């Protein structure tokens, strides 16, 4: 009851005309930066931060938070339409989302992404209110050994990521792992594979890699093929979901939400893993796994829900401990500090109006986002009808702006182009980029946590089995590997038998 009262106070704050306006401005900017690849919420929020000094802290936080979760909504749009993921978490959305677009089902893909995001965003908020203290205990139980085991699980998902052969996926993942080694090693601070270039000391940037591998490579591929354009164009049609779509995606949304909510509270990498895990899980649970990679709607619905639920639950460690689990929320934390808000465990008691006001504003913001995004779907889909001669240069331009805005380094543009050419070449031989991204993102985290866990255990590998959470992930990884590899090995045996 007390909870409802507090939430009521929160809504009173969130629904005041000023705060409604701030919330709307926030989600609108969020949608825009989400749609523009590479120009992420961090850039938008840090540019706007000085401007928020003039408005009350509650309004400022409502607006900045709106940019954050608004950008999560918009992030799927370019992944689906033109196969440009703005961040690692939307790489998965490219896989089936863009296939759907090619089949003329861009509308359905965007629609299910919006609905999934809305559901996940709203449910994550309920979770944020109800189970925040409990979740914090779980998050703090995660030490290096647990993180390492979770990353191991993530790496095992490679087996489910790709249409190509398991061998080809492993090759790509291996390349990703090696690329992830570039830069100052995180334990001994020694440079690896940097070739004495300062640009490489911090490693290769994720944004130029994913934009190159997906966006730029896709353009090269289309230029090469050239002609099948009319196929996409003629079948844009239907925006609403068919009943089959709905049946296929509804449980994927629910499962993705649960996954994203749990993994999203972990500082560092939780959101990325949750979208990959969700994809792998849907493919594993599906009765028709062969549809994945060829436009399966569950492959869009699940990861998008996971992504957005993770964005919501990421607020738990921020609001209850003052620990931001990702870079965007670190920026929000900075904004709170500058606005002299007592961040951390005392925030809820010292500034209940602000805490509950922001939580309530997120409900309001999610509704606004849905209302804002659904009519836009038709508009986005129309973008596909823009002639290639105009569309491709525009996509390239946005990729360049996005990459440059992220780091301010010309060098990163060269990286993007190199990965574009590389991605196009390997695709011709049937290799897919998603396992590379997974290896590239998870590899460094895996290594760092593995080595930290071994430092803390004084070199004993038993630490991964002795600690229950870690043991659980290790076991789950083993099961995943087994279930993925056994059918493949059996198939190989049969092949050999037939050939023999």
């Amino acid at each position, binding site marked *: 009851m007390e909870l409802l009262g507090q939430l009521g106070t929160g809504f009173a704050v969130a629904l005041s005309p000023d705060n409604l306006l701030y919330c709307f401005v926030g989600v609108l900017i969020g949608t825009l930066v989400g749609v523009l690849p590479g120009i992420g919420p*961090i*850039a938008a*929020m*840090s*540019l706007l*931060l*000085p401007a928020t*000094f003039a408005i009350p802290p509650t309004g400022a936080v409502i607006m900045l938070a709106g940019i954050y979760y608004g950008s999560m909504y918009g992030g799927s749009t370019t992944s689906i339409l033109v196969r440009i993921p703005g961040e690692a978490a939307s790489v998965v959305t490219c896989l089936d989302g863009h296939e759907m677009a090619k089949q003329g089902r861009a509308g359905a893909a965007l629609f299910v992404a919006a609905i999934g995001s809305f559901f996940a965003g709203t449910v994550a908020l309920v979770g944020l209110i109800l189970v925040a203290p409990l979740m914090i205990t779980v*998050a*703090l*139980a*995660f*030490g*290096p050994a647990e993180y390492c085991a979770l990353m191991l699980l993530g790496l095992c998902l490679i087996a489910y990521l790709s249409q190509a052969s398991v061998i080809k996926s492993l090759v790509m993942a291996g390349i990703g792992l090696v690329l992830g080694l570039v830069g*100052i*090693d*995180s*334990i*001994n*601070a*020694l*440079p690896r594979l940097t070739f*004495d*270039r*300062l*640009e490489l*000391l*911090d490693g290769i940037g994720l944004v130029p890699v994913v934009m190159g591998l997906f966006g730029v490579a896709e353009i090269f591929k289309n230029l090469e093929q050239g002609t099948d354009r009319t196929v996409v164009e003629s079948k844009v049609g239907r925006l609403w979901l068919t009943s089959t779509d709905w049946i296929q995606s509804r449980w994927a949304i629910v499962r993705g939400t649960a996954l994203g909510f749990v993994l999203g509270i972990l*500082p*560092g990498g939780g959101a990325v893993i949750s979208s990959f895990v969700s994809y792998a899980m849907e493919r594993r649970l599906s009765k028709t796994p062969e549809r994945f990679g060829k436009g399966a709607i569950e492959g869009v619905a699940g990861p998008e829900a996971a992504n957005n639920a993770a964005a919501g639950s990421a607020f738990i*460690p921020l609001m209850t*401990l*003052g*620990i*931001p*689990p990702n*870079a*965007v929320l*670190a*920026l929000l934390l*900075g904004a709170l*500090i*500058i606005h*002299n808000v*007592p*961040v*951390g*465990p*005392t925030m809820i008691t010292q500034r209940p109006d602000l805490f509950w006001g922001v939580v309530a504003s997120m409900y309001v913001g999610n509704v606004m986002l849905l209302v804002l995004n659904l009519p836009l779907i038709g508009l986005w889909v129309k973008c596909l009808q823009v002639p290639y001669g105009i569309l491709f240069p525009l996509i390239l331009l946005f990729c360049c702006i996005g990459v440059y805005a992220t*780091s*301010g*380094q*010309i*060098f990163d543009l*060269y990286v993007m182009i190199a990965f574009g050419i590389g991605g196009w070449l390997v695709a011709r031989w049937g290799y897919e980029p998603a396992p590379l991204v997974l290896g590239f993102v998870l590899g460094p985290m895996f290594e*760092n946590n593995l080595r*930290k866990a071994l*430092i*803390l255990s004084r070199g004993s590998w038993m630490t991964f089995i002795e600690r229950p959470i870690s043991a659980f992930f290790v076991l789950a990884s083993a099961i995943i590997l087994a279930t993925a590899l056994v059918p493949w090995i059996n198939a190989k045996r049969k092949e050999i038998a037939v050939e023999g």
Partner: protein
Amino acid sequence: MTKTLWTPSRRRFITSSSAAALAGLAAPGLAQSRFPNRPVTLIVPWTAGGSTDMGFRALAEATQKHLGERIVVENKPGAGGTLGPAQMAASARPDGYTLAQMPITMFRLPHMTRVAFNPLTDFSYVVHVAGYCFGTTVRADSPHKTMKDLIEFARANPDKVTYGTPGAGTSLHITMMDIAARENIKWTHVPFRGASETNAAVLGGHVTAQADSSGWAPLVNAGQLRLLATWGKKRTKTWSSVPTLQESGIDIVSNSPFGIAGPKGMDPGIVKVLHDAFKKGIEEPDHMRVMDQLDQEVDYMDTQSYEAFVKTMYEDMRQQVERLGLRRS
């Protein structure tokens, strides 16, 4: 300077210097008296939204009204904060329109590895701004009440004490190594990736202690972490009851001081215009307030003092790197 390292920048340098030649033809001798007549770019070699970025955005905001032109903050993160200033030194004209934050890594990295810049000769120093607030914390229920307790425990139990830092080779890590070397104790470094991870690690009991910049502030204020010592010259305003390292018997000050510089060869008149504007900007209440909230300690020095300080700091870093065996090649 090895030119091969800087291909992209060199090309930009050529285009910008030909632009300079044209500008010089149009208005000979006037540039200096009119400075500044267009926006000034201030390179912050850290990601947007970090604590350095927020401080510098506040400083830019506070300074531009005294300078009479906009100051545009440009984030060029990389190589521990050295990439932005190094590229500026290699490619920007010394006309006062391109400046950069000079983090401590500019003075440490050249001693550790081969770099393409020399902090003593490649820059025109303008003004020293501030230092960060570093500190050591333990969980509130820890038996260690003071820095001395922690050190004595480590002495009695070699390698038992583990401490988290935001990364290997950071000032936090190096200072903790320095403390161990001076006190002749052994403790185990566990490098995390940023403050949110070290906070969670010490709070979750995965490490004994945490050495980090003031990301621990919310948890210290809420009584979940205990701040054993801050590392500045004097006690902080916010945690005035917490002793410094020096007061704890360890003669170290570590606050990674930083200032602003441009490329070498800037006209002294232009440096003076910039210095005077930044001095006023630093002292603006809005900037001071933001710095207080970010727990950064304002430490103004004029151009001459900063230049002298840079020489001492560079030599100190050389000795530290040698003492701790951090040289790589």
